[in-house]
């Protein structure tokens, strides 16, 4: 019997290595797997390359991971926010590298990783500083920039429900990067509020099929955390 549900966050992250690329879901606080990130802090992996849309908010989750000095490089679309002060200090001190990527390229580059695409010509950012040094090409009169996939060693996902085969569903706009990073990482770990029996999720409505998910771990619903995020 295949059971991808593990008993603890510690177990779900036990083998994350120093220097890993960690894809983290979430857009602002929605879909941000704070409990898994706390687990990653406790686990101790260092020199991480982290991919997330933002650069942490306040003191929880990614902000805490940054504060603890575990992040060598952040690949991100929007690190500038009122409460992203940990990132800001580290960045100004030259202690974290930033690769700024337009949000759609962030999504599409990870989608390419999951789909086995070697590179793709994308119109976004053509003619801007974010395309500097990149290969460009005109195709049918339109200008494109060549973009490469972003592969992850680990993906940290916040979903709503999961079953023992790793099937996932999400809650509203907390879905955001979840299904994309699940496919882009070697080991996708999903925190869920509910683990359900096989068959409880309608096969028509499964958003991330279990093939993309290696581990599922249940966390308690913490309304306070969600609002703080």
């Amino acid at each position, binding site marked *: 019997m295949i059971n991808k549900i593990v008993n603890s966050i510690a177990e779900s992250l036990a083998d994350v290595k120093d220097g890993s690329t960690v894809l983290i879901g979430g857009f602002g606080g929605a879909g941000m797997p704070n409990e898994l990130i706390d687990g990653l802090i406790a686990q101790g992996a260092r020199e991480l390359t982290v991919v997330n849309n933002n650069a942490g908010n306040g003191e929880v989750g990614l902000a805490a991971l940054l504060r603890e000095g575990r992040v060598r490089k952040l690949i991100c679309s929007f690190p500038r926010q009122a409460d992203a002060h940990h990132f800001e200090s580290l960045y100004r001190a030259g202690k974290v590298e930033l690769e700024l990527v337009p949000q759609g390229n962030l*999504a599409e580059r990870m989608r390419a990783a999951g789909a086995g695409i070697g590179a793709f010509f994308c119109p976004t950012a053509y003619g801007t500083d974010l395309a500097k040094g990149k290969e460009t090409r005109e195709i049918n009169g339109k200008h494109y920039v060549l973009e490469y996939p972003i592969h992850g060693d680990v993906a940290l996902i916040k979903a709503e429900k999961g079953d023992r085969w790793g099937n996932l569903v999400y809650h509203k706009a907390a879905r955001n990067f979840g299904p994309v990073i699940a496919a882009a990482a070697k080991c996708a770990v999903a925190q869920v509020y509910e683990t359900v029996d096989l068959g409880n999720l309608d096969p028509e409505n499964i958003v991330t099929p279990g093939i993309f998910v290696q581990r599922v771990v249940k966390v308690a619903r913490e309304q306070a955390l969600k609002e703080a995020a």
Partner: protein
Amino acid sequence: MSAIPEVKPAKSYKPRSRDVIAARVAADIPEGAYVNLGIGLPVMVGNHLPPGKEIFLHSENGILGMGPAPTKGEEDWDLINAGKQPVTLLTGGSYFHHADSFSMMRGGHLDICVLGAFQVSVTGDLANWHTGAPDAIPAVGGAMDLAVGAKKVYVMMEHLTKTGESKLVKACTYPLTGVGVVSRVYTDLATIDITPEGLAAVDIVEGLSIEELSRLTGLPVRAPK
């Protein structure tokens, strides 16, 4: 020699308020349009969409059919807009993941996006993501994806900077967001189309002449037809 005091001519026009600009943008959005309102000023357009018309608001974080802010106490922090503010979903709306959401932009499925700007050039170049200041934390979000993807890119901005310089320029001095992407600009002074022949006013606030608008803009602006 007795000095004759120089009389500064009284300003003969009143700039439009942000709400009036937003309402002006909203008036250009037809029923059935798929629209993305950028963070900042453009969000205000949402407050002026005519309630009788069905217009589909897209949010980059995976929402189509976005509704207004929830009433106090009804917020769901899993249902937020691009500016991370709680929103609602209209009946008939849907959720999807980020790759699909940006396919909607990049694939040309959005009819209109409305963006703020630092500068717009006469050829439609847009600068809205970075002031170019060396110590600024750069952040781009979905602006570059929207700029190349939407069928029409509308810009909503003040016509002049706080120091009185035109934000409509011959060539952007701030870092670009997109090249030749802007169709129309809505400011506190006028609505102006970016055309192959240059700037063309669609409307001007009452009391402002086309000559004075051109002078303030630092560029020739054609009079409305």
